[in-house]
């Protein structure tokens, strides 16, 4: 999902040591009673990013977003926007705008009045407001519906008005709270593309909160995975997917097979792990060297496993299993195969060639095989 603009950038801003972040979160902690909603979070977000805070409910992502918006004040730490400390600045004085999960459109005002609200608070001249409102309506393709009231709009239309209203003041930072949660699947996909387009056209930095990992992966430049108030990993979607730093991240994003084991041998780029669940010694890549004897998890993505009817020769990482479950999804099929030890592995096969015949059947005995470079060892 990268645009030409992005592809041209030589170095991503988060990898450039000289780049100044537009948003810097320093050691922010927020407690409610005895619970740590946000626990010592530090993060740098750069101009033009579409940043996602991803996590399950209760992980603190919404609280962190509210702190960025000024609706909560952290107990510890600082929030710097464009270099200025804004930790204690109230929402109406921040160059930040928020798109609320419930859209929060003012029911007693028309669409135009809603969008104009923020501009009126700044006491801009009426003609300027009129132009800006028209431009915003154009941006979200709601040009004809300016005179309507929110209760006369559909869910998708209301969402677009909320977005237009939040962008009207051209804020430095736009916060989005579960923006696609209320939409149905088709609309969601369409809106994902639209949101990214609008973000690139306006050049605004977006920070989005979501529990849907597909959404985060599709739309963001970088994702921060959160759990229990802490950030577990921050990286680009592909990095998170292929190089998760922990069992938590590996399981949270996408589907994964997780094998527990102990390291028995270490080589140049890979280790040999003796698995506990399956009678198997697995070769897997590591990010950093791991001493022999450590207990680890091995993560293998389902699409990286191949199945064959005949036992392949000369391959490492081969195990035999029997098909116990099939899910046919049209473009892919998911197979669950149970090994002789009773452990179930999940495999995904793409139907690249047109054929109505299923590849494999329940009860088929097949061989699963994968490369060492496709399995990753996790210590966390």
């Amino acid at each position: 999902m990268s645009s030409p603009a992005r592809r041209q950038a030589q170095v991503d801003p988060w990898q450039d040591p000289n780049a100044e972040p537009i948003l810097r979160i320093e050691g922010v902690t927020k407690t409610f009673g005895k619970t740590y909603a946000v626990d010592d979070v530090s993060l740098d977000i750069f101009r033009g990013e579409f940043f996602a805070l991803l996590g399950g409910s209760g992980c603190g992502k919404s609280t962190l977003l509210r702190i960025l918006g000024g609706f909560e004040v952290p107990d510890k730490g600082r929030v710097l926007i464009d270099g200025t400390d804004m930790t204690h600045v109230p929402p109406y004085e921040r160059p930040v705008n928020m798109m609320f999960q419930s859209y929060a459109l003012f029911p007693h005002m028309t669409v135009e009045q809603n969008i104009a609200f923020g501009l009126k608070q700044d006491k801009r001249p009426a003609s300027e407001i009129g132009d800006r409102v028209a431009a915003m309506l154009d941006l979200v393709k709601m040009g004809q519906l300016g005179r309507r009231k929110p209760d006369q709009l559909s869910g998708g239309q209301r969402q677009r008005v909320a977005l237009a209203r939040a962008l009207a003041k051209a804020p430095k930072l736009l916060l989005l709270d579960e923006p696609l949660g209320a939409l149905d699947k088709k609309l969601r996909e369409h809106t994902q593309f639209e949101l990214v387009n609008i973000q690139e056209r306006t050049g605004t930095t977006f920070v989005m909160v979501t529990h849907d990992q597909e959404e985060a992966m599709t739309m963001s430049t970088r994702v921060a995975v959160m759990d229990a108030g802490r950030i577990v990993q921050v990286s680009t979607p592909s990095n998170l997917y292929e190089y998760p730093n922990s069992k938590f991240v590996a399981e949270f994003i996408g589907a994964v097979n997780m094998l527990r084991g102990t390291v028995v041998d270490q080589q140049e780029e890979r280790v040999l792990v003796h698995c506990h669940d399956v009678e198997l010694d697995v070769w897997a890549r590591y990010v950093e060297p791991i001493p022999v004897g450590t207990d680890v998890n091995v993560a293998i993505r389902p699409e990286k496993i191949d199945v064959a009817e005949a036992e392949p020769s000369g391959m490492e990482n081969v195990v035999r299993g029997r098909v116990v479950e099939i899910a046919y999804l049209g473009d892919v099929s998911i197979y669950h195969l149970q090994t002789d030890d009773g452990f179930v592995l999940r495999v995904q096969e793409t139907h690249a060639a047109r054929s109505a015949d299923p590849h494999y059947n329940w009860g088929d005995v097949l061989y699963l095989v994968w490369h060492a470079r496709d399995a990753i060892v996790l210590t966390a």
Partner: protein
Amino acid sequence: MNQRRPFFLYTLMVFGYAFLYLPIASVVAFSFNETRSVSLWKGFSLEWYGRLLENQAVIDAALLSLLIAAMASTLAVVIGTMAALALSRFGRFKGRGLLSLLSSAPLVMPDVMLGISALFLFITLQQLIGWPEGRGIDTITIAHVTLCVCYVTVVVRSRLAQTDHSLEEAAMDLGARPWKVFFLVTLPLIWPALLAGWLLAFTLSLDDVVIASFTSGPGSSTLPVLILSKVRFGVTPEINALATLIIVAVCVGVSLAGWLMHRNNRRAA
């Protein structure tokens, strides 16, 4: 819904409403009575309405009651709405428990307590600082405000609980200071509750006899106090006539409001 239920339910409801309205019917009916009696019907007459218009004491008392009720309700709405806002929207703050307790306690307190305590306060204040000099409109009004604030708070709080809290956050996020948020966003959404609270407070103040008895002084008899004093010697149907007029006024007012709202809804649809 089950077929048998409605019939049984309707009977009970009708009985309940009849119970409510029988005395009122009696009041209205006997205002047209030929004799002084309020329990034996003799014949139709408009005599008491004529007498009412000449009875200065009753008219004065009625006007005084209306004045006090208007002042007390308005003040109660202002104070009560503030309390409702604070308790509903301000999250946790120091003293929240105290405010919550104070603003709901008068709801469940007997009138005698409120009346006698208010009076004792005024007596003590008079001793200490010279105000209030004797009891009158100001003391009654203050006592009524204290009574009504909690009712307003309940009504407004319930409405605030139903409105989306994020609307106010959105307004702040777009640059409006809290005061503006209240007038531009909150108030347009909760004004029916404020109106309902005002009407409720008005009724309570107008109807109160115990508190007014304690906190009124010479020359400031409210209508209920006047009626109470007359009750001991026998009420003349003049009072019935007054009550009937009030009932008619209320019915007209309510019907008008209902018709206006109906028209409003139809126009919006």
